[in-house]
C-alpha cells in the first residue's frame, strides 16, 4: 500500500505559521480552535541559555494508525492511493475515543461537547489529485517542509521519525521524516555569571534584581510556553497553546 508523508526540518522552521494559515485558507476552516495543522512554539532553559522549539503537527497519517482501531464508530479509515488517514463525515460526531488514542492530538474538535464534530488534516488529498503539494508545504518560506512518498523522503532525508518532546514513533509509525534543530556553538567567549551581574546593575539606580537566581530559577506555573502540550483538556487551551507572542 502506498504511503505518502511529510518531511519537517526543525532546523529551518521559524514558526511563522504561513503553513497553518494556508491550511485554514485552503480547507476553508473558520478562525478558532479547529486547527488541522498546529504549530507549537515553546522555550526550554533559562536566560541566556534558552532554546525555542518549533513543532509542526498536522496528522502524520501513521503507518500504524491507532486511531482507526480505537474508533468504536469505525469512523476513520486509511485511504488507498496516498495512505491518508481520513474521517468518515457521517460518523464525525462519534470520534472521541479515536481522538483519545492519537498520541499527537491530531483529531480536533469544534468544542468540548461529547458529540462535537471532529475533523483533521486530510493530507490535502484534493490538492494531490490536482498534482499540487499540500497547502502547508507549498506555503513554507524557508522550505522547511517537503511531501511525497515516504520511501522517497527517507532516501532524501533519512529515516528519523522522532523529535525531542514528541511521543516515540514506535507507537504508531508516523509517516514523517524529521530533522532536529541545530546545536548551538559558542563563537566568542561569554561568561554567563558576569553577564548576569552586569545586567542587574545600572549606574546609580537600584539593581534590577538581587541575585542571578532571580533570573534563572523558574518556579512551576510562572511560564506557560515552556513545554509541548499535544493533548490539552479543552479546545480553548488548545487554541491558546498553539499561538505565539510574536505580534
Amino acid at each position, binding site marked *: 500500500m502506498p504511503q505518502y508523508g511529510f518531511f519537517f526540518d526543525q532546523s529551518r522552521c521559524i514558526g511563522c505559521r504561513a503553513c497553518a494559515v494556508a491550511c485554514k485558507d485552503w480547507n476553508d476552516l473558520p478562525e478558532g480552535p479547529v486547527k488541522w495543522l498546529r504549530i507549537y512554539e515553546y522555550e526550554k532553559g533559562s*536566560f541566556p541559555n534558552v532554546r525555542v522549539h518549533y513543532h509542526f503537527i498536522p496528522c502524520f497519517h501513521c503507518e500504524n494508525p491507532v486511531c482507526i482501531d480505537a474508533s468504536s464508530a469505525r469512523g476513520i479509515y486509511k485511504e488507498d492511493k496516498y495512505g491518508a488517514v481520513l474521517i468518515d463525515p457521517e460518523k464525525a460526531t462519534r470520534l472521541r475515543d479515536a481522538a483519545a488514542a492519537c498520541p499527537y492530538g491530531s483529531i480536533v474538535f469544534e468544542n468540548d461537547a461529547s458529540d462535537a464534530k471532529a475533523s483533521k488534516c486530510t493530507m490535502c488529498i484534493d490538492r494531490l489529485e490536482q498534482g499540487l503539494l499540500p497547502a502547508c508545504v507549498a506555503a513554507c518560506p524557508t522550505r522547511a517542509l517537503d511531501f511525497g512518498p515516504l520511501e522517497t523522503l527517507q532516501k532524501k532525508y533519512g529515516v528519523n521519525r522522532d523529535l525531542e518532546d514528541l511521543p516515540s514513533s514506535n507507537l504508531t509509525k508516523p509517516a514523517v521524516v524529521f530533522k532536529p534543530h541545530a546545536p548551538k556553538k559558542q563563537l566568542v567567549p561569554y561568561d554567563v555569571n558576569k553577564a548576569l551581574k552586569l545586567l542587574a546593575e545600572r549606574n546609580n539606580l537600584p539593581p534590577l534584581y538581587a541575585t542571578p537566581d532571580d533570573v534563572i530559577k523558574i518556579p512551576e506555573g510562572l511560564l506557560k510556553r515552556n513545554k509541548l502540550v499535544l493533548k490539552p483538556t479543552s479546545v480553548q487551551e488548545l487554541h491558546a497553546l498553539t499561538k505565539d507572542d510574536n505580534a
Partner: protein
Amino acid sequence: MMGAWAWIPYVDHEAPDIFNTKLIIMWGWDPTTSEWMIFTKYYLCLAKERGIPIIVIDPRYTASAEVYADQWIPIRPGTDVAMMLAMANVIFKEKLYDQEYVSKYVDANGLQKWMDYVLGKTDGVDKTPEWAEKICGVPAETIRELARLYAKSKPCHLNVSWAQARQPYGENVARAAIALHAITGNIGVPGGSSCLGGGLVARGVYDSPIVDYRQKPVPKTEMWGGTLPVLYCNWKWADAVLLREKVDRGELSKEEYNSIIGNAADNPMPNLHMLWINKNIFNQTVDLNKQIQAIMKMDFIVACGRHMTPSNKYADIILPLTDVMFEERHFFGNMYAPKIIEPLGEAKDLMWIQTQLAKRLGLLDLFMPLYTSDEEWDSLMERLHKEAYEKWAAERGINIPWDEFKKKPIIRRDVVGELNYPFKPQIRKGEKFNTKTGKIEIYSEYLATTDLKKTQYGGPIDPMPVYRPVWEGFYDPKAQRYPLMAITPHGRYRIHSVQDSNPWLSEDCYRHAVWINVADAKARGVKDGDLVRVYNDVGEMVIPAYVTSRIVPGVVCIYEGAWYAPNAQGVDRRGCSDIICHSESAAQRYPGTGAWPFVALVEVEKF
C-alpha cells in the same frame, strides 16, 4: 504581500552573495519577522547549512537567534552604539583595521576625528570594552573577542537592523555601523556589508511599469515638483497644533516653536485646522494621548479608508476606499495586482477621490488632465496601465501581450553575470563616492558647521557617530519611577497596523502580550497569561503578560501596530504601543526631527 514593499528604493547585496561571507553578524536584525525580501529567510538557512558562522546580537532571543545563530549575545536596547564604539576601539588599538582600504576609500580627516573620539583623545573617555560592558550588559571579553573575530573574518556581513534607528539618537546607530563596515574594508566588496540591514536583494528583479497619470510634465513650481517648505516633522504634528496656541498667546517664541516641531526658524508657522488622513496614522505615531488632544482641536477631519481603524473613528467623514489588491489595478514595485472584483458598496479608489477634489478646486488640469467623466474612469485607468505595461515591456524585449499578462502576471527570466552589491564601481573601478571628498565620510562637515536651528532639523545633530544615553532608556533618571525599558518592534502578523483586525491572524496565530523577563515578572507577582497594566506618565494599557527567558532583564517588549481600543476609563485594552511612547522629552533635548522615539520607560503591575 511582501512584494508590495519592494518599491522602496533599496539596495543591498544580492542574496546569493551571502555565501561569499565568512561571518554573519545579525545585529538587532530579525528577518524571520521583518524584512522586505521574503527569500532572505531562506538564504540565511542556506548560509547556515553551508557552515557560515552566525552571531545574533539582540535584546531578545528571536526566531533568528534560535534558527540561524550559532550564538546569541543579549544586549540592552539603546546601547548598541557603545558596543560598536568599543569594537572600533579594539580594532584601532590592535591595528586590526584594513589600512590599505581605509587609506584608499575613507576620508582621512573624518576618520581621525572619529578615532580620536573612540580612543578618548577628545573627551577623555577611552571607549574600551570595559567602558562599554557596564552600559550594554555584555561582558568586556565578549566584546573584545567579537571585535577580533569581526575584523579578522573577511569579508563579514554585519547586518545592523533599521530597528535600532527607531529610537532616540537612532541616526548614531546607523552611522556607527557604517563606520565599522568602512574601517574593516567591507563596503563594496563581495560578501561584505555595504549598507544597513533590511533584507537581501533578489537577483535580476525587474523594476515596475510606471503609470503616467498626467502624461505631461508637472510645472516645477507647482505641486510635488515644486519647493513647498516642510513645516513640521510628521511625528510632531500634535505639538504643532497644541503649542501653536501658546505662540498665539505670546508664551512661546516663533523660533522656539519652529525648532520643537521640526521647522526652519524663518519658515511660516503651521496653523492646522483640518486633517486629511488615508492611513491609520494616529495609531502609528508616538504619544497617542497627546495626539487625541490635538485631534479634538481640529475643525474637520476627513478619512479615506477601508477599515474602521482607530484613526478613522475620529473622522467627521469617511470616504470608503477600494481594496488595492482586489478592486483596483496596481503595479507595486515588481508586482502587479489585477482588478479581480468590482468595488463593493460605494468604495472608490483614492486617485478618483483626489481627482474629484482637484476638479472642485479647479486643479484638474494639474492633477489629472486626462479625466473626462466618472463613466469613463475605469476604462481610463485600464488604458493607462496597459500603456505603461506596453512601454515597459517593449523596452525590455518582453513579448507578452497585455491581455495575456493580466491573466498570468508572472514574468520569469534567467539571470546571468556577476552578483551585484552596492558601491561596486567605487571599489572596483575607483569611481568617487557621492560625497564632498569623494570618499566614505565618517564625519559630516555639514552637520558640524551648519546652524541646524535655521533648518528644518531644528537643532544640532552629531557630526559623527557618538554614544548618547537615549532618553526613555536605561539610564534616563526617569527609570527611578518607571524602571522597565519598553521596546516596540514590528510584529510578525501585522504590517505595522495592517491586519490587526484579521481574525485568521489575530485570533489564530498570536496573543498580543507584553514580553517580560522571568526576574521582572517574579518581582511583580506576575505569571504568564495574567493581565498586567503597563503604564507611564503619558499612557497606559492592560494586556496579558508573556513571561519568558527570551528577553534581557529590565526590558519589556510590546509589538507595534495593535489597534488602540480604550475602555470607558480611557485605558487601552488592546495594547497600542504608541500610547506609552513620548514625543515631548524629545523636543526639549533634541532637534525637532530625527529618529522616531519608539521606546519608553514603563512600570508593569498585575491588573
